[in-house]
């Protein structure tokens, strides 16, 4: 009876704000969160800039999405990963990453998990669908 949940991965490889990709990708993630799917998100290449904390888009006159990313865990999107090499080669460390929610019990902030490319490649191989943004 129990059918395997669909595994859907989002890859984010574009930098934020210079194009609509990251924003659109976030919208799709929140929509997909409404379905009973096994969702994961991977930030790689310039996509790692999308999860840098302290983004302020006020002067650009656009909404920004740091607050929405901060609610990913509330949307039950908890499998959020950052490619280590992409992050490090762009001068970022784990400390620079924004918070995606907080632990229900401890109220500790939850951040994306930094992983190596072979781990990401292995996860990619398990997916039913991968949506690239």
């Amino acid at each position, binding site marked *: 009876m129990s059918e395997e949940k669909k595994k859907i991965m989002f890859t984010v*490889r574009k930098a934020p704000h210079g194009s609509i990709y990251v924003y659109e990708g976030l919208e799709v993630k929140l929509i997909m969160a409404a379905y009973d799917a096994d969702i994961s998100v991977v930030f790689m290449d310039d996509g790692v800039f999308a999860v840098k904390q302290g983004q302020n888009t006020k002067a650009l006159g656009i909404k920004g999405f740091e607050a929405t990313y901060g609610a990913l865990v509330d949307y039950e999107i908890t499998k959020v990963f950052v490619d280590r*090499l992409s992050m490090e080669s762009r001068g970022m460390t784990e400390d620079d990453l924004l918070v995606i929610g907080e632990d229900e019990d401890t109220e500790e902030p939850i951040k994306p998990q930094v992983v190596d490319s072979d781990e990401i490649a292995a996860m990619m191989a398990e997916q039913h*669908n991968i949506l690239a943004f």
Partner: protein
Amino acid sequence: MLHTVNKSPFQNTSLESCIRFTRPGDVILLIEDGVLAAQAGTSKSAMLEEVLAKNEIYALQADLQARALTDLVPGIKVTDYEGFVELVEKHATHAWL
């Protein structure tokens, strides 16, 4: 799995990233400006030769023809739209846009 790359390797790092996340047995399909990587004798040829030891690489015929690319890195297979569809049918796909 199938990786599609549609950007020129001379202007964009998509192909490099794709290769970094490609596992043995995965297939790479070059389309649109991605086919520029398929040419023999470029600064990227050695990189493709290395990949070809573990992975199949295809290039889309229509895009090669449109760009007058005939001299390809040995081992790269040329496919048409029908072949493209067959590859997508066979594998889960990631587009390195």
